[in-house]
């Protein structure tokens, strides 16, 4: 107390102003989130009905249903992960276990960072030009999925690489000392030990896919038809939940539907973040 009194007025003002600013900013950030989530839930949850969730939209009956969008989101997540996961994990393994050329490693890492920085609208355009037009996939879930594969590669590579780095060198030396080949060591020691990091990468990627709209608008399109077969589903245009939100709100002015979808997306984000946290915690415990 005595010490405080000794300080000059200027210092005391400085102290209290900045202290207030720090607390106010943190409060503002948290309040923003609470208001955002609260507002979306209040406006959205009353409009989540069975009809909305479990039917396809019908022009004849004049009803709106988002079942096709839910299915499309699910399909595109599965497709994207099946392709991107092996490539991304493979790239991370290459960078940490195989590559010896420092320059090459830094070039690959620079490329990965560059990919992470490219905005999704550009992915959408290139996806449209390359997958939809050049490879002839048309505007379809397949084009959209392929575009997303490139987009989530950096996420998977980075999280996998981080967890590979936490595998102790003694594991590698032990395996190689017992006569294991490199691939055998990676298959039986390295990959299982870094499983949690890979899982975290998957969850983060799912979050990105669920929230993505700009990259999908021109590649996967906005279709809302439920197809019987997998092949037909992937060769047709299909809008995910985020794209559907944009279409219903901007093109048709259906704000209630928009808020219902937003509430569903928020719930998914909450689950995804919780999952990533859990996986991350397990990773830390082990390391």
């Amino acid at each position, binding site marked *: 107390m005595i010490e405080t009194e000794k300080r000059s007025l200027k*210092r005391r003002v*400085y*102290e209290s102003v*900045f202290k207030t*600013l*720090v607390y*106010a*900013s*943190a409060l*503002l*950030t948290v309040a923003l*989130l*609470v208001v*955002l989530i609260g*507002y*979306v839930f209040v406006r959205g949850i009353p409009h989540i009905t069975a009809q909305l969730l479990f039917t396809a939209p019908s022009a004849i009956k004049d009803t709106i249903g988002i079942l096709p969008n839910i299915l499309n989101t699910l399909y595109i997540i599965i497709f994207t992960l099946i392709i991107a996961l*092996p*490539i*991304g994990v*493979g*790239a991370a393994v*290459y960078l940490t*276990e*195989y590559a010896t050329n420092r320059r090459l490693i830094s070039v*690959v890492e620079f*490329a990965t*960072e*560059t990919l992470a920085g*490219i*905005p*999704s*609208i*550009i992915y*959408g*355009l*290139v996806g*449209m030009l*390359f997958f939809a037009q050049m490879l002839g996939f048309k505007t379809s879930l397949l084009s959209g999925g392929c575009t997303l594969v*490139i987009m989530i*590669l950096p996420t998977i*590579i980075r999280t996998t690489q981080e967890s590979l780095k936490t595998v102790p060198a003694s594991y590698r030396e032990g395996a190689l000392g017992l006569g294991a*080949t*490199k*691939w055998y060591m*990676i298959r039986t020691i390295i990959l299982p030990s870094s499983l949690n990091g890979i899982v975290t990468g998957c969850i983060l990627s799912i979050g990105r896919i*669920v*929230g*993505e*709209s*700009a990259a999908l*608008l*021109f590649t996967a399109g906005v279709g809302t038809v439920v197809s019987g077969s997998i092949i037909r589903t992937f060769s047709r245009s299909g809008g995910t939940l*985020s794209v559907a*939100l*944009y279409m219903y*709100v901007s093109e048709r002015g259906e*704000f209630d539907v*928009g808020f219902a979808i*937003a509430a569903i997306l928020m719930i998914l984000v909450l689950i995804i*973040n919780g999952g990533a946290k859990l996986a991350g915690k397990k990773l830390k415990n082990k390391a």
Partner: protein
Amino acid sequence: MDMEQVKKPLGGTVLQTAHETQEKVNNEATTRSMRKILRDGVEKVMNGVFFACGMMAIMAVLLITGYMVVAGLPAIGEIGVTEFLFGTQWASTAAEPKFGILPFILTSVWGTLGAILIGVPVGLLTAVFLAKVASPEVAAVVRPAVELLAGIPSVVYGLIGMMVLVPAMMDIFNLNNGTCLLAAILVLAIMILPSIISVSETALRAVPREYEEASLALGATKIETIFKVSIPAAKSGIVAGVVLGVGRAIGEAMAVMMVAGNVANMPGLFKSVTFLTTAVAKEMSYASGLQRQALFSIALVLFIFIMIINALLNFVLKKGDKHD
């Protein structure tokens, strides 16, 4: 087999057994060497597979760059570089179409600057709170909140901006139409908060304890130490966070499209404006001919902006590493 053995003399059997053993050994040796060849083959194949995976990121960057340049250059050539970059009028569907994208470039620049101006102070101070002020229990509540903000899809930000911010703009500033640059700036400021907070927090945490202890020992208060020692020491990390935020803001399309009004005006806080991203997204679905090519040219300009920002980010981070 028994019959044969009986007929043969004893020595023959011994010889034959020896022969068989030899053959067995030989066989084993061949299987072993075959297994080794197989194993080496698998090793080689896997080596190649992993190499291919590693090269995928480079291929993707080359593909994207290639497509952007090839698709974007023709229209710029046709319209003329100065006409395209510094033309102040965009009327792509008019009888005498004009393709000047200066309004889009300036809107993107001003929009990003505005978002940084609001987002950086709030973000940096929140990072200070998380890294230096908050108790572990409080930080354990605030940090997940920041992560959640990062996870909210941009269309949800757009929807809320459209339903809350835009009407609020109309009321507060007496506008006929609430869709304006200011609304977009506010949405962008919120959207870039998480990147700025998490990168700055990491940087602040990396400041050596001795720096702060020395400052405290000299009689500085905790707040003085944070603002006069910790933040300057964490400068390069904080700058990296800001640059990351710039990249996010300039590349955001959907949220901005829902609140900015999408009219090709020169930027003004209360005017409906079009960003580089939204110019592309808005017209892409129905454009054709030169208009469509011009959209790819806009994307190329955006891509160049992003590449410059990426290079800057890399430079700042490298410099930071050396500094440490």
